């Protein structure tokens, strides 16, 4: 089980079960009531069954997949996990921002896969709020990552006004 950072703290118990691969719907019947994060293709294929499923559910998107595929269902999804097949694949940064800014997604966005200390700060700025750390990452060191910078130039999810607007407001005050 990976260590999860949630809201910039180490999560003691994670209720989510991530199904990296899922071939058929029997997995849902085997553990009723459990909270599952399922792959996109599974979700699209068994959406009817999932609608009836009593437990919480979420979807994970690989870096080549886009939120458009689940745009209509976002209100029913408590979590979207975005995968980093390798840490230098930056596509999930865009997916996170799009979920937050364009689709106004309010649920949890979790980084999964090759999730390393030195990418956490930018992930948080793009709208991720939980992080399933790669097994070798030291969680305490990772927590420090959120303090790498005190601010940023751009508009971001955690700071919606870009610096030029904040500078201006400050001068007006």
């Amino acid at each position, binding site marked *: 089980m990976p260590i999860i950072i949630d809201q910039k703290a180490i999560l003691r118990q994670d209720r989510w079960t991530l199904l990296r691969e899922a071939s058929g719907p029997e997995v849902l019947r085997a553990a009723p009531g459990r909270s599952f994060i399922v792959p996109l293709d599974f979700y699209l294929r068994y959406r009817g069954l999932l609608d009836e499923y009593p437990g919480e559910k979420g979807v994970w998107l690989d870096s080549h997949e*886009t939120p458009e595929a689940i745009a209509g269902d976002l209100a029913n999804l408590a979590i979207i996990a975005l995968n980093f097949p390798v*840490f*230098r*694949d*930056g*596509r999930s*940064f*865009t997916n996170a*921002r799009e979920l937050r*800014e*364009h689709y106004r997604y309010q649920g949890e966005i979790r980084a999964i896969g090759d999730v*390393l200390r*030195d*990418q956490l*700060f*930018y*992930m948080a*700025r*793009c709208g991720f709020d939980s992080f399933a750390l790669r097994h070798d990452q*030291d969680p305490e060191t990772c927590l420090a990552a959120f303090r*790498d*910078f*005190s*601010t*940023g*130039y*751009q*508009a*971001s999810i955690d700071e*919606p*006004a*870009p*610096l*030029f*607007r904040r*500078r*201006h407001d400050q001068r007006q005050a």
Partner: protein
Amino acid sequence: MYRYDEYDHAMLAERVAQFQDQTRRYLDGKLSEAEFLPLRLQNGLYVQRLAPMLRVAVPYGLLSSAQLRKLAHIARHYDKGYGHLTTRQNIQFNWPELMDVPDILAELAEVEMHAIQTSGNCIRNVTTDHFAGAAADEIEDARPWCEIIRQWSSFHPEFAYLPRKFKIAVCGTPADQAATQVHDIGVYLLRGDDGETRFRILAGGGLGRTPVIGQVIFEQVEEPHLLSALEAIMRVYNREGRRDNKYKARIKILVRETGADRFREKVRREWERIKDSAMKLTGAEIRRCQSFFSGPDYVQRLNGSDALEESLRNDAEFALWHRRNVRAHKQPGYAIVTVSLKQTGLAPGDINDRQLDFLADLAERYSFGEARISHKQNIILADVEQRRLHALWRELGAESLETPALGLLTDIICCPGGDFCALANAKSIPLAEEIQRDFRNSAELEEIGDLSLNISGCMNACGHHHVGNIGILGVDKKGEEFYQISLGGSSARQASLGKILGPAFAREEVPGVLHILVDVYKAQRDPGEAFLDTYRRIGHEPFKQSVYADHH
């Protein structure tokens, strides 16, 4: 020029601390080579053939005297006494010790400098025409817009892990000395029918293995929407750019494979979503950035200088330098001076600590304490009183910086090549030197006139060989260095890519081939016609025939 406020200072200090921590973790074995790689690259640190190389960012090429002095200090104390000006208006040091790099970065931060995003798969240092704000025929000063883009692109959380590096140029001059059309994004400033500033935005240009001229993505973007237009392009690229093959990962390949029309449509769709978001620029912010570049305290009502006219009449060497290296300024009584770093015997673009200090001093006394680096690897003093040009020229002579080479065949753009770079197939600096020795007669050079010669040591094209009127590319043939010549390239407004002349030559043959090319031009040119114009008029064949007829 732009001055940091407490936010800029805070972020820079935090970045220095962050990289110190990353370097420590790497040295402690807690960060793998592969994981450290993009982190060090995005802090300007390469591992080269002989030593690490640190590339220092010079935003849009602009430097203060204090910054020049700091660079001199770094060259002297941490390097072998010199630095190298790059085609992206940056300066790089080829001999620092890895363990000294954190100290160098801390020293740079003292003068509001750094090496951030000068390498790696992120948005690189934004560049512009080195005459911005001074050129007599300028449409609008691009520097405030460059600064706005610099801030937006620095530490951009979404675009730090792009498929490949990403270069943006902004140009507000008709001549375009920024090579705007061969950038991943090129931005031209123009005036709309209502007199307001507009941006024409191109994407998908580039050199390297696959040279391409950019496609127009936006015809006319209004001021408030500059950043959202750029961000829309970046977002489509970040999502769809190829990540399976490093050599096909630049945006030029995406634009080509998607088709310009479809790419434009995707960008437009993204842009519609974000153009009215918080990143919409405010008039207050635009004016704030413009206020840093409002122009120095020019002496008013200076007219043409009688003293200058007299010097030009009486001093032929000065007159030659003036004709070549001095350009018209928009402020009456002022001129733009290019200090050539193309003295024979020195690698093009190399500059030593003494020269850096010397130029800092000259900039202070002649040009309001500022200098610029050009993508042609020279130094510009942009605001010099005409009546003091002769005095400046005499002072330059004391450090052998008075070479009247600007725009001539010997004003060579040249990458560091096989002497330094691990990627190179061939050496480029010794060839540049041979050419400069061969064409050392200044009257002959002057007679040939404007002719750009660009040399790259490999197909990554750091020496911009595709856009030289004459381009030279180092190639490896069974372990031997050969040089392929192309003709007809230009990075100006009427941009064009060079066409390969034919089979490559051994190094010692190259100067002879250049003489043949120049002779064909001189024989065929119309009065006053530059090399490139003759080439465009008469075409490739006469040059090719003469070269290969004589050759075999």
